[in-house]
C-alpha cells in the first residue's frame, strides 16, 4: 500500500528545512522499500511547528513537527507511515486545539490540498461557487457580496459590495479586476500562504468578481519578494486555463475571464491601489489623486475592481453559502473572519483565521503563547508599518475596524507583530519615519519631505535635545502628514510614531 505523506512547500516551511525533510523522506522510504506518495501541500499555518509533516492514516491525517531531516530515520523507525508514536507526534491534525479553535473559511483548503491539483481542489469544494455564480444574474451576485458585509481586507476596510456595484454600473468597453498581492506590510503573510497553498481559490474569487462586474480580464500584481508564490500561481493559472476554468468560455459558459500575473519590483508604495495600477501600466509607482476612483477610471482609465488577495479569496465561500451566512459571523460592522498573522517575537506564530470580535489578548496569549524570548510582551504593532504600537493595557480590544479606529489603532491587513520588553519604541518610531523616507513615491510634499524631517526631529528628541519643543514640532509635522498626504502612506505614518510617543513616552528623550 502506498502511504501519503504531506510535506509543505510553503516558503515559511521551506525556510526552516522542508525541502530537506521531503528529500530525506523519499530516501528513507526508498531505502526501506516503502511506497510513499509525497504531497507538497501548503502550510496549515502552525508556523512554529514547521516543517510540520502529516501522514494519511485510516483514522485521518496525523501530524508530526517540527521535523528536521535528521529526524526522519527515527520517524521511520517509529513507523511514522502508519501514525506511530514518536516524541514529535502531534496527533490528528484536525484535533490540534490551535487549529480546531479557528474558523477557517478562506483558509479551509490551505494546507489540506495539493495546491496545484485541480482534482484535489474540486474534491474539496472548489468551483461550487463559480458554477453557482454562472447561474446567477450579475446584480444578484453583487447583492450576495453586499449583504455579506465583506470589507476590503487590504487595510482600508471599504465595503466590497459598494465597489462591486460601482464597477458593475460603470459603462465601458473593457473592465478589469486587479488583485493586489503586493503584500508589503511587515508581519503579514496571509496572501503568500494562500497563493502558495490554495491558489485556485483566488482565481475562482477573481472569476466570480469578473462575472459580477462585467470584467473579462484580471491581473494579479504580486510582489517580487515572493518567488515561490509566483511559481505556484503561474502554474495554477496555466492549469485553470487548460481546464477551461479561465479563458474565453469559463466552464463552458461562453463568458470570458482570464487572469494575468504581473510582478512588482520592490516598491512598498505599489501596495497602494493607485500606485499599483500605475505599476501595472508599466510606470513608476506614483500615487494617483482620487477622484476618479479606480472603480470608475482605473487600469488604463477603465473601470477596475481592485481588491486584496484576502478579499477575493473570501468571495467563493460567500457565494457558496450566501451573504447572510457570512454576515452572521463577526462583530459590529466588521463581518466575517479575518486571517490574522501572528508574527515577530511570538512563541506560537502563524495564521489564525478568526471571526472579528476576537480580542488581541486571545490572539496573543491563547494562540500566540506570549513571546518567543519568554520575556513579557511590551507592545504589539497591528496593521503593518503604518499601524499603531498597541500597549498591553489595550489588549482586551476586540478586532473590529471601528473599535480599533476609535482607540487610534489600525486593523490593516491583520498582521500582529509582537515585541518583548527589550524593544525601544523611540527607535521604532524613528524607523517608521526612515522607512517612509525610503519608500515614499515622492508625489506629495507631506510624505516626501515630512518623513525626512521626521527622522531629523526624532533624532533630536532621542538625543534629548530641546525635548519639549521638538516633540511639539513632531506632533505638528504628524498633523500635516495626516491631513495633507495624498494617500495612506504619509497619512497613516503618524500612527506608529504618535502611538509610540503617547503610550511609551519613557522611550523618547532619555539622552
Amino acid at each position, binding site marked *: 500500500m502506498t502511504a501519503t505523506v504531506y510535506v509543505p512547500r510553503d*516558503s*515559511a516551511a*521551506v*525556510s*526552516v528545512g522542508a525541502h530537506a525533510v521531503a528529500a530525506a523522506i523519499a530516501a528513507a522510504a526508498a531505502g526501506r522499500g516503502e511506497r510513499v506518495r509525497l504531497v507538497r501541500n501548503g502550510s496549515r499555518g502552525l*508556523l*512554529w511547528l*514547521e516543517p510540520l509533516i502529516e501522514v494519511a492514516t485510516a483514522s485521518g491525517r496525523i501530524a508530526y513537527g517540527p521535523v528536521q531531516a535528521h529526524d526522519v530515520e527515527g520517524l521511520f523507525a517509529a513507523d511514522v507511515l502508519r501514525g506511530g508514536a514518536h516524541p514529535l507526534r502531534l496527533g490528528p491534525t484536525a484535533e490540534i486545539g490551535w487549529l480546531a479553535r479557528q474558523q477557517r473559511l478562506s483558509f479551509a483548503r490551505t494546507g489540506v490540498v495539493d495546491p496545484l491539483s485541480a482534482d484535489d481542489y474540486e474534491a474539496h469544494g472548489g468551483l461550487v461557487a463559480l458554477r453557482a455564480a454562472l447561474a446567477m444574474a450579475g446584480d444578484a451576485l453583487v447583492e450576495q457580496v453586499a449583504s455579506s458585509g465583506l470589507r476590503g481586507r487590504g487595510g482600508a476596510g471599504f465595503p466590497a459590495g459598494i465597489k462591486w456595484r460601482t464597477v458593475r454600473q460603470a459603462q465601458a468597453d473593457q473592465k478589469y479586476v486587479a488583485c493586489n498581492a503586493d*503584500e*508589503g*506590510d*511587515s*508581519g*503579514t*503573510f496571509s496572501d*503568500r500562504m494562500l497563493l502558495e497553498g490554495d491558489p485556485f481559490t483566488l482565481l475562482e474569487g477573481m472569476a466570480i468578481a469578473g462575472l459580477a462586474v462585467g470584467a473579462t480580464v484580471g491581473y494579479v500584481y504580486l510582489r*517580487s*519578494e*515572493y*518567488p*515561490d508564490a509566483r511559481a505556484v500561481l503561474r502554474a495554477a493559472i496555466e492549469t485553470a486555463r487548460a481546464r477551461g476554468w479561465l479563458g474565453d468560455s469559463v466552464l463552458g459558459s461562453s463568458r470570458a475571464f482570464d487572469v494575468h500575473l*504581473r*510582478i*512588482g*519590483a*520592490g*516598491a*512598498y508604495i505599489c501596495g497602494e491601489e493607485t500606485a499599483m495600477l500605475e*505599476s*501595472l*501600466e*508599466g*510606470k*513608476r*509607482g506614483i500615487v494617483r489623486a482620487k477622484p476618479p476612483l479606480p472603480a470608475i477610471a482605473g487600469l*488604463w482609465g477603465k473601470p477596475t475592481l481592485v481588491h486584496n488577495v484576502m478579499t477575493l479569496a473570501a468571495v467563493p465561500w460567500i457565494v457558496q453559502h450566501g451573504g447572510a451566512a457570512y454576515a452572521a459571523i463577526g462583530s459590529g460592522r466588521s463581518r466575517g473572519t479575518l486571517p490574522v*498573522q*501572528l*508574527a*515577530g*517575537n*511570538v512563541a506560537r*506564530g*502563524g495564521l489564525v483565521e478568526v471571526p472579528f470580535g476576537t480580542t488581541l489578548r486571545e490572539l496573543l496569549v491563547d494562540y500566540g503563547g506570549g513571546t*518567543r*524570548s519568554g520575556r513579557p510582551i511590551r507592545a504589539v*504593532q497591528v496593521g503593518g*508599518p503604518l499601524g499603531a504600537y498597541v500597549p498591553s493595557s489595550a489588549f482586551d480590544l476586540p478586532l473590529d475596524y471601528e473599535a480599533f479606529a476609535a482607540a487610534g489603532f489600525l486593523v490593516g491587513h491583520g*498582521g500582529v*507583530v*509582537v*515585541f*518583548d520588553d527589550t*524593544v525601544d519604541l523611540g527607535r*521604532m518610531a524613528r*524607523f517608521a519615519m526612515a*522607512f517612509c523616507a*525610503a*519608500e515614499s513615491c515622492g508625489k506629495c510634499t507631506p510624505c516626501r519631505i515630512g518623513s525626512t524631517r521626521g527622522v531629523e526631529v526624532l533624532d533630536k528628541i532621542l538625543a534629548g535635545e530641546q525635548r519639549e519643543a521638538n516633540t511639539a514640532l513632531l506632533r505638528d509635522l504628524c498633523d500635516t502628514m495626516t491631513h495633507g498626504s495624498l494617500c495612506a502612506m504619509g497619512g497613516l505614518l503618524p500612527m506608529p510614531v504618535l502611538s509610540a510617543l503617547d503610550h511609551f513616552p519613557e522611550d523618547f528623550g532619555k539622552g
Partner: protein
Amino acid sequence: MPSTATNGAAPASPATPTQFAIVDASIARLGDLPGALLPILHDVQDQLGFVPEAADARIAAALNLSLAEVHGVVTFYHDFRRAPPGDHVLRICRAEACQAVGGERLEQHLAAHGLGAGATSADGRLTVEAVYCLGNCALGPSVQFDGELHGRVDERRLDQLLGAAGILPRGGCGCGRQGGCR
C-alpha cells in the same frame, strides 16, 4: 572584506552586443503586452543580473516611450540594478517583525566585515541587499539567499549559509571573537 558600491552613483557599464541581443529578444517576446516595461526589465535582469543603462534607449524606442520614462522606472524600483551583482545575492530583511527578534544583528554582523547593504564584496562573490519584509514574519530573522528563503537566521546560521557557498570559511566568519560572532 572591502566592498564597492554597486548602486546609486556607480558608473554605467557599457553594454555588449550579447547584452543588446538579450534586450532585443526580451522586447520582441514581451513588447506587445499591455504595460510591457516592467516585464521587459524583469526579463532582462533575470538574464543579465542587471539592466544596462545603454539598454534604456532601445527599450524606449521599442515601446514608444521617452528615455526619461524608462530611466525613471528603472531607478524608481529598488529591484532593478545598474551593475552586475556578485555571484551570490543575500537579501536581509530589516522590517519590524524581524527587528523584533534581533534581525538587525545580521546586518551589523556583515557590516563588521565591510559588507553593508547595497554593497558587493571586492572579490565579486557576494552582493548584500536590504529588503523590507520577505513574508516570513513568524520565523524571523529572515534572509533570502539566491532566491531561497531562510528563517530563524542568526549570525551562526548566516555564516554556515555563506560558508556552504564558499563565501566565508566554513564554520565561521573568522572574525576572531570568542565563541564566534554570537
